[in-house]
């Protein structure tokens, strides 16, 4: 789960990490007063107008504007609020800007990259810093990997002071700024663990002309599995940033991700669901979605799955691929029969059921008289689904 920059900064502030501060505004009518408040409260003549969307690349997309005067701030804010901001992460339609973060402007001496995330290979969190702030860290990792300093943290001990010092030395800091940076790093790690974050990235963390260390941006991602014990974090979820169909699917306990193709997919298990998407592509089609109905697929789940898939108008055929382990194929078959009847389906449905109670399931489908296309294997199902989609 992702949150906005202003929410991430509020978390950092709570953990005593100094931030570039400001106020959030959602209405055009309050732009002028908000800009004035930021200028006054943070003693900053110039302000920065920052679009609040989850996608990265906001600056390059025109969603972040330095504004030296109140007039320019108002003009920039008026232009950005409500625009469809297109970045390399949003897709061609862009993401509507519903919130602006108006912040103080700072005189920057140096920019650093700072992040904490999980190193899957080692099973430990890794704290990374680099003198190459403001750049894409992937580029730094590729071109000048020696400029990234890493410390792996023992989960039973937590982050130790010597590790924070090593990171700060890595940024070539000295004196008071060195000491401040060490505190900032330890506080960031505390924030990361106590909020069940899966990534905290501050890019850039800056050293100002007057020697302060300040987080200019904050990117957080959280472990969905831990949200049951992080109610405050879970409440930060912004539904406007989610795909509406994916949101609805999650309310049905279905794991759905929309894609651009025309063959709808309903599968049990994430691995088999991905493999089904892949084989549709190999058969000459394009998958319309990822949908894992999980281990408890029954009549209701299957019906809900159909409803979700059919919200996508591009869908020209639906493939159901179930390899029953815990899932009983006869229950899935009953769900398919009911759904086809009740929802007045007019797209072809290709059904492949194997595993637990598959024979009973085939009998149910055959006896029902509903117009479904049975398939014998995953290859057979994919070929039939793609042919059905192409012929419409």
């Amino acid at each position, binding site marked *: 789960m992702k949150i906005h920059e202003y929410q991430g900064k509020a978390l950092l502030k709570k953990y005593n990490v100094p931030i570039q501060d400001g106020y959030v505004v959602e209405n055009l009518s309050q732009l002028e007063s908000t800009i004035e408040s930021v200028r006054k409260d943070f003693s900053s003549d110039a302000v920065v107008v920052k679009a609040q969307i989850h996608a990265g690349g906001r600056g390059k997309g025109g969603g972040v504007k330095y504004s030296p005067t109140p007039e320019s701030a108002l003009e920039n804010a008026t232009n950005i609020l409500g625009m469809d901001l297109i970045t390399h992460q949003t897709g061609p339609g862009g993401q509507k800007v519903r919130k602006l973060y108006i912040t103080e402007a700072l005189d920057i001496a140096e920019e650093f990259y700072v992040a904490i995330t999980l190193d899957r290979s080692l099973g430990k969190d890794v704290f990374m810093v680099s003198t190459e702030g403001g750049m894409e860290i992937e580029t730094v990792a590729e071109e000048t990997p020696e400029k990234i300093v890493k410390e792996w943290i023992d989960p039973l001990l937590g982050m130790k002071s010597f590790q924070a010092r090593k990171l700060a030395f890595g940024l070539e800091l000295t004196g008071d700024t060195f000491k401040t940076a060490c505190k900032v790093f330890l506080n960031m790690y505390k924030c990361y663990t106590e909020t069940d974050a899966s990534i905290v990235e501050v890019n850039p963390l800056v050293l100002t002309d007057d020697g302060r260390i300040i987080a200019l941006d904050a990117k957080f991602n959280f472990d*969905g599995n831990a949200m049951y014990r992080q109610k405050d974090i879970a409440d930060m979820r912004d539904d406007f940033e989610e795909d509406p169909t994916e949101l609805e699917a999650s309310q049905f306990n279905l794991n759905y991700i929309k894609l651009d193709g025309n063959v709808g997919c309903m599968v049990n298990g994430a691995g088999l669901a991905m493999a089904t998407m892949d084989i549709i592509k190999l058969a000459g089609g394009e998958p319309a979605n990822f949908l894992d109905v999980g281990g408890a697929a029954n009549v209701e789940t299957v019906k809900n799955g159909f409803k979700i898939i059919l919200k996508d108008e591009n869908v020209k055929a639906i493939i159901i691929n179930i390899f029953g382990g815990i899932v009983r194929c006869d229950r899935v078959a009953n769900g398919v029969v009911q759904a086809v009847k009740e929802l007045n389906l007019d797209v072809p449905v290709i059904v492949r059921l194997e595993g637990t109670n598959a024979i009973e399931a085939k009998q149910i489908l055959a006896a029902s008289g509903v117009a479904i296309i049975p398939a014998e294997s995953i*290859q057979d199902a994919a070929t039939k689904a793609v042919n059905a989609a192409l012929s419409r």
Partner: protein
Amino acid sequence: MSILVNKNTKVVVQGITGSEGTFHATQMLKYGTNIVAGVTPGKGGQTAIDGKIPVYNSVEEAKIEAGANTSIIFVPPPFAAEAVIEASYAGMDLIVCITEGIPVQDMVKAKRVIDENGTRLIGPNCPGIITVDECKLGIMPGFICEKGNVGVISKSGTLTYEAIGQLVSNGMGQTTALGIGGDPIIGTDMLDVLELFEADPETEGIVLIGEIGGQMEIEAARWAKENVTKPIVAFIAGQTAPPGRRMGHAGAIISGGDDTAEAKMRIMKECGIDVCESVAEIGQKMKIALVQQTEAVA
């Protein structure tokens, strides 16, 4: 022979009185798994599964009283990592954790403990392990398997079943099949299992099923290039997955670099592994690989 579990494995089921635990313990017993104990704290002294299995308050008791040496965990996510730690300290030889949805921070700590104690863990968020006709320690449908000479390693549950189904329809059985789990932090990884299958005299071919995210497939492939003499047929799920989106499994997310399906397939091929473009080729390719292996030996 087989790997990790067999008919001598003495199993304790952690969370045996919960609905999941009861259901799957019953299925495992039917398959012939030697379940000797269950654990539900506070229910020690009772019995489970129609009076067949004694219940203890702790894994340690189950070990001392019933001789359990292997644990399978069906404990809800908030308590599952601690169940792993308990089983590790109780000295289990092997722990299989089925639970899906354990917070990553909890698993990072549990992983640190099992590494320290030298305990082998399979999972979490996995279908478990089955040694055909001997021991089913998991939630997979046992009836789809047949005894044979192919070892199966997978990150995913139903994709393991798909591979087993294809092997059987092509006339091949399995020694042991296991799903290592789809979470970012897991115990036993692909390389570990390859090592075990390579050392197992009954296993003659290996099916390896990976997916997008992480580096495990690549590390396994690089190791296999130098160390595995048996044919490996591999498939990577997620060729059509968009970057940055978590595809069901918490670990199945493309975050850049070598963790795409395309990159994994390319590197695996470079390491001499027979990589399937399509999931439908797994059975056929394994059949051909085994024939070629036999001819090469002859």
